[in-house]
């Protein structure tokens, strides 16, 4: 500070009067809290891990939450996937099995609609988990935890990144469970390879990263959970329906196809189907990966930059 306030301007008198009760500089007190401060770990990863772990621990120690979040895709897979089997329209239309398979391949890129839908469900669960990542920011703000975190040396970017990471971790674990359910319900596993599964989860990771960043970003300034719910509902279903998660792009009207083309969910589905089912994709795997890498990097960076601006008033 440039301008010094003259010390002791109005205080010399009371200093003299309270002198007696004042402690001397030495000897060193024997109480523990006055010990010398230990060497601090100033790496941002230290705080990042602590914050991520906090949210994850609250999640896995509350099995009801996990169970409820798995019921929805299980219902979609078990009921929607089995009942509304678009593939059966084609088999019901007659023709030889070879002709039917050719039509199915042409529309879905694979011969089993259920397997097609199962891959879509992996992205579906990630979309819905990511959408709610912003909610925990709102609640942390409301219940004061956010302010506490911000009054510690942990960076604002770290606080936001931790929220994104916990959502990504939850998304991936849940989609792995959904994959297990899908296989149990009869998903085509003839083409599955270890590399394919790993590649799929890299794609899903990228999508989760981008979507979680987006929803956390939208919650940075909000202290009202109703508004946040409205935002989630506003974005969730369009992102799901205007994608190839449930229905093939080929049968959509042209204007919708253009929307689907920018929706990152479509790229994740496209890649995952190629990797898990050996399906014929709309894009090459390279394009799918490149698009999602771009999406994830862009939104994570924007999220961190916004957190610097929006989390300090």
């Amino acid at each position, binding site marked *: *500070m440039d*301008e*010094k*306030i003259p*010390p*002791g301007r*109005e*205080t*010399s*008198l*009371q*200093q*003299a*009067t*309270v*002198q007696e*009760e*004042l*402690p*001397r*500089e030495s000897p060193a*007190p024997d*109480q*523990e*809290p*006055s*010990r*010398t*401060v*230990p*060497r*601090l*770990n*100033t*790496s941002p990863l*230290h*705080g990042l*891990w*602590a*914050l991520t772990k*906090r949210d994850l*621990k*609250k999640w896995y*120690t*509350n099995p009801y939450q996990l169970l409820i979040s798995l019921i929805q895709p299980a219902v979609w897979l078990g009921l929607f996937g089995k009942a509304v089997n678009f593939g059966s329209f084609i088999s019901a239309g007659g023709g030889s099995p070879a002709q039917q398979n050719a039509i199915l391949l042409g529309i879905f890129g694979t011969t089993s609609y259920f397997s097609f839908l199962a891959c879509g469900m992996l992205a579906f669960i990630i979309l819905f988990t990511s959408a709610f990542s912003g909610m925990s920011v709102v609640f942390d703000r*409301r*219940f*004061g*935890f956010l*302010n*506490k*975190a*911000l*009054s*510690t*040396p*942990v960076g604002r970017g770290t606080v936001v990144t931790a929220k994104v990471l916990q959502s990504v971790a939850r998304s991936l674990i849940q989609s792995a469970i959904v994959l297990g359910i899908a296989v149990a319900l009869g998903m085509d596993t003839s083409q599955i390879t270890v590399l394919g599964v790993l590649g799929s989860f890299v794609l899903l990771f990228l999508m989760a990263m981008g979507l979680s960043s987006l929803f956390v970003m939208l919650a940075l300034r909000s*202290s009202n959970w109703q508004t946040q719910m409205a935002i989630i509902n506003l974005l969730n279903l369009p992102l799901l329906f205007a994608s190839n998660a449930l229905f093939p792009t080929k049968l959509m009207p042209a204007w919708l196809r253009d929307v689907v083309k920018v929706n990152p969910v479509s790229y994740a589905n496209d890649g995952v189907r190629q990797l898990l089912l050996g399906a014929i994709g709309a894009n090459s795997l390279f394009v799918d990966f490149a698009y999602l890498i771009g999406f994830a990097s862009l939104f994570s960076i924007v999220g961190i930059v916004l957190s610097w601006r929006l989390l*300090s*008033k």
Partner: protein
Amino acid sequence: MSRQENVLFPELSRPIIIVDKLSKTFNDGKIKAVDNVGFEVKEGEIFGFLGPNGAGKTTTINMLTTLLKPSSGNAEVCGYDIRKHSNEVRRAVGVVPQEYTADEEMTGYDNIILCADLYGLPRSDSKKHADELLGLVELHDAARRKVSTYSGGMRRRLELACGLINYPKLLFLDEPTLGLDVQTRAAVWKYIRMLKEQYRMTLFLTTHYMEEADTLCDRIAIIDHGHIVKTGTPEELKASVGGDVITVTVKEREPDLSPEIAQIGLVKDVKKNDGAYRIKAELGEETTPQIMDLIRSKGLHVTKISLAKPTLDEAYLEFTGRELREEETDRMQMFSQRLTMRRARS
């Protein structure tokens, strides 16, 4: 640095907080929450910010702990510029906010460990330190329970322990006893005094409870409408409203000694009616014997004598005015304050 050295060589030890023309406006300058505030806090003292709700106490704390950016002006905390070195400030100070910030779904112990992690304490140290602090605030037995089962007093003590986790030299306490019962309030006061006396900590606290400021603080700043209206020790503030009142009753027929009493150095005002002197004076304890001596030296008799000290309440009302406050607060602030009160009483 001991206070004595401060007096003799004020330039040797810099105050731990130096605030210079600090202001904060909200809504594009329409609301001036803190307006051109300047004060200093010396190392080792308990400094109290006293003021009605909405006076700007929390806004000032939030700026000093780098949660809010000042609109203008600056401050130095623990030797660091709050604008340029906010990370160093955060590392050096402890903060106990007004709200309860602990995570309800976690145990008290896990909450403290989380705080330790956020400050970057190595795990080898944080476990030991967390145990010490839980012992300090007498929460050892409840440490492994979820915070949602805690009473208001236990939550407040946990917040205090969290605020101490980074070995701060300076601790900020925002309304540390808001909504607490008398016993818990006494316990919190005990901890605050212990931190000052045994751990040589400097404490900056805000309160709107008069007796809290009076019993705890070495110095008080009264803040109202974003301005500091008065700074001083509790005694000085009380004295500034007119000093002590000494009432001396004498036998009725005795001559009036008012002019002689008024000659005594510390006496400010003397009135006599119905055989009783009503004397306003500074330092009543010292003035009273002098008055006694004076009356006796004239061969007269005192039948009754009483000394009344002015309360801080009077000083406070003198400086902040008596009109009731219809302050405007935003929804979020109201919610958080109500939540704090509710949890404090749970």
